[in-house]
């Protein structure tokens, strides 16, 4: 396929792909219809032309998970979820923690963090169109935090004049998820309104561990999107969303999390080959504690981000696209952990350029360069990225990427003073250097009919990784830059589908992390992980039935841990055992409107002997049943 296409053609293609995604019938996956993705280059490109992993709308429906965290774990080998420090969710992918994984929703960052991870409960699985995962460093496109990977969750968009969707799901341990969406598209205006409520009871776990119960919690997501197409060459859109979550973390205290986000964007097409977009985004994420005795809800944390962005892209026939952009981010942080006062601000100014060139029909080169300046640390960073791809014959594509990643020290890491359970204090450090990395990736892809086989080798050298070390002068922990860390590994993926309705997908990741640091704790990344999906779907007179078995397996890992937090000089080597979880999902779509779903999680009833923070937080086999109506 010719890689570079005029923008209008791409937009039309994108629209067609989006319509195709609305039909989760098995037939749609037989014909190879590509999704247009935007994460790899910030401009729409066919998914076959860029090194982006996609979790399609069909995958999302087949996975039938309770939330986005479970969806990502189900689909991505190499991804691990831990429950650290009072059951805060932390992702780890390819040896990188949450601070080095950039999560975007429709291309926008999310405010707020806990243990360097965003609040994943803000991500509603019901509104997802698809997910794009760009592995490797991509700071040349996205700036800070895009070190290990960029995960872009792309919302579903209305494609019919009227659609109404409502669903309910109930499961073990009081699991509930109810949602309703209404989408209207009339003339030049379209609107999508979405509401979702989820809840889970407290779960008493059957084995001892770092935690013995899983906190009960409930959440509410509400969002509204409006799009207006006043002129042939102009699109404008507005959005607003509210999120609330309450976690029953204590018999006297509940943790509460709130977020309000809003945005405006305008996209103009100038001539046939040039686009200009302007975006403004607001995001406020708060944490508070509700004391049940006196019913006081006191805020302890607030992060507010304002982002303004201009993006210019022009296609120069026959085979060249130039993109340039500028961003301004205002970051505000208030926390009881900050010292000497409780609030800090930082401005980040960025500019980037990218040139996407196809010198021959089989060769594509993409080069990008970005500069970011951070006022709080008074530092700047230039990050490059170069990707080359070569198509060999009709079926094989080779790709090579050299890129840099970086992560600026956060306001928390620079200015916080946090009392750690009365044992010691974690001190901020305003002299921190940005964490930065060099990344090289080589990939080969074979595609034939419905079969796709990809393999890649990746290597990162990470400098100045930010971590906590004991400071003798302060008598406590302090954020500091580490010695270099090397991370290398491989990804393998195979997917195929037969005309009989049977599908197979296998993913495998090997990650090896070598730390040259003086930190006492060794890496806890599990070296081997794999996912497997076997699915079968068939159309009947009464509808379409789809069955899928999902396997997720992770190898054991040995790592050093403190024997006691009263003695940080003594560590012990502990082996965290391997485990495998099996899921069974069954969906039946009755004619046009109703879909009944059943899921059995942890089919083999695996229960860890001890719930370490990186053990699967499963109480054993669980069940859920759901009904969705789409009109």
């Amino acid at each position, binding site marked *: 396929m010719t890689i570079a296409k005029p923008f209008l053609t791409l937009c039309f293609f994108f629209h067609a792909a989006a319509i195709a995604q609305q039909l989760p019938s098995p037939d749609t996956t037989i014909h190879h219809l590509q999704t247009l993705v935007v994460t790899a280059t910030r401009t729409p490109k066919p998914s076959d032309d860029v090194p982006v992993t996609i979790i399609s709308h069909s995958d999302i429906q087949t996975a039938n998970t309770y939330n986005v965290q479970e969806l990502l774990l189900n689909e991505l080998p190499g991804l691990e979820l831990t429950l650290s420090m009072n059951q805060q969710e932390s992702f780890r992918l390819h040896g990188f923690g949450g601070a080095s994984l950039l999560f975007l929703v429709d291309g926008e960052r999310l405010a707020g963090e806990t243990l360097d991870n965003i609040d994943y409960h803000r991500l509603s699985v019901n509104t997802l169109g698809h997910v794009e995962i760009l592995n490797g460093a991509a700071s040349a496109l996205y700036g800070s935090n895009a070190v290990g990977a960029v995960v872009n969750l792309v919302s579903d968009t209305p494609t019919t004049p009227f659609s109404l969707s409502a669903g309910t799901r109930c499961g073990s341990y009081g699991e509930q998820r109810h949602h309703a969406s209404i989408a209207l598209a009339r003339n030049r205006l379209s609107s999508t309104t979405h509401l979702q409520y989820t809840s889970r009871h407290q779960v008493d776990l059957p084995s001892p561990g770092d935690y013995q119960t899983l906190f009960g919690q409930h959440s509410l997501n509400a969002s509204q999107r409006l799009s207006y197409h006043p002129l042939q060459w102009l699109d404008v859109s507005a959005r607003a969303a509210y999120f609330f979550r309450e976690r029953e973390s204590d018999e006297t205290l509940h943790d509460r999390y709130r977020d309000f986000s809003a945005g405006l964007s305008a996209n103009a097409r100038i001539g046939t080959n040039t686009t200009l977009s302007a975006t403004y985004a607001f995001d406020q994420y*708060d944490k508070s504690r509700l004391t049940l005795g006196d019913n006081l*809800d006191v805020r302890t944390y*607030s992060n507010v981000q304002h982002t303004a962005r201009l993006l210019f892209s022009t296609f120069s026939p026959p085979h060249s696209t130039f993109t340039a952009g500028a961003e301004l981010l205002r970051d505000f942080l208030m926390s009881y952990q900050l010292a000497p006062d409780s609030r800090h601000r930082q401005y980040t100014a960025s500019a980037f350029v990218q040139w996407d060139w196809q010198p021959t029909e089989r060769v594509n080169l993409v080069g990008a360069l970005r500069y970011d300046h951070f006022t709080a640390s008074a530092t700047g960073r230039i990050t490059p990225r170069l990707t080359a791809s070569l198509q060999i014959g009709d079926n094989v594509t080779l790709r090579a990427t050299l890129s840099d990643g970086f992560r600026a020290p956060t306001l928390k890491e620079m200015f916080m003073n946090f009392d750690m359970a009365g044992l*010691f204090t974690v001190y901020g450090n305003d002299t921190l250097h940005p964490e930065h990395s060099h990344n090289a990736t080589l990939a080969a892809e074979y595609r034939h009919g419905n079969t796709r086989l990809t393999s890649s080798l990746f290597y990162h050298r990470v400098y100045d990784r930010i971590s906590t070390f004991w400071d003798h002068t302060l008598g406590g922990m302090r954020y500091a830059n580490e010695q270099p860390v090397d991370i290398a590994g491989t990804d393998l993926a195979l997917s195929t589908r037969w005309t009989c309705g049977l599908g197979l997908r296998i993913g495998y990741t090997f990650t090896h992390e070598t730390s040259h640091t003086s930190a006492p704790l060794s890496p806890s990344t599990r070296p081997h992980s794999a996912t497997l999906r076997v699915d079968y779907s068939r159309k009947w007179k009464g509808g379409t039935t789809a069955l899928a078995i999902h396997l997720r397996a992770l190898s054991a890992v040995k790592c050093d841990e403190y024997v*006691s937090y*009263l*003695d*940080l000089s003594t560590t012990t080597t502990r082996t965290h055992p391997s485990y495998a979880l099996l899921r069974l999902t069954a969906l039946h779509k009755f004619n046009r409107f109703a879909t009944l779903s059943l899921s059995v999680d942890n089919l083999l009833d695996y229960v860890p002997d001890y719930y370490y923070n990186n053990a699967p937080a499963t109480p054993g086999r669980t069940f859920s049943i759901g009904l969705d109506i789409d009109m």
Partner: protein
Amino acid sequence: MLCGGCEDVLSDFYDEPRQVVAEAGFLSPSDGEHEGIIVVDVRSYSRWVYLDFHSLTIDSADMLLAEETPSHWDIALHRYDACTHHGAAAELPASDLATAENFLSLVSFTPDVDSLVVTDMSQMVDGILGYTSTPVNPVISCWMDVDLSIMPPHYTPSERVYLVRLSDESVVALRFDKYKSAEGVKGILTLHYRYPLSTPSAPLPPLP
């Protein structure tokens, strides 16, 4: 408000914080029949907090600064350690203070023993903890099991009643009710107690 409206659109959801830590002391004295309530701040590693059930007062002294201990006290608390003033203690297989007298003649009392308590954490990363040798009552000190091998530590209260024979042969019944304040600050203890308990007509065996 945090500052301008552009930085805070959610402020109406929240309440103003009240005083972070409740006032320590004998908040509600016991008359022996009814329960009393004591709130104690034991957050400091270097400080013993002394309870005087006769005068209903609380005092404290810093071990590292060699501060003088008060002249009158009955029970002292340091973090989750406890000691008596020439007394002894017993744990009851019960959590209800109302039935404490029933066990008086059935339990054996254990006196304090010399032990080491952590008083200085400043060099913990090097495995150097500052310890001070001091009498500790091993029975009352079991009221809380703290597992420091994980972060945050696991706190598991025994939820038992403890009988403490004081040096004047009077008896106090204690139950450690909470180990953190209403705001979630760990080390703010709430104790329920009855004092003085009615002692049986037959004298208790002499203290060891």
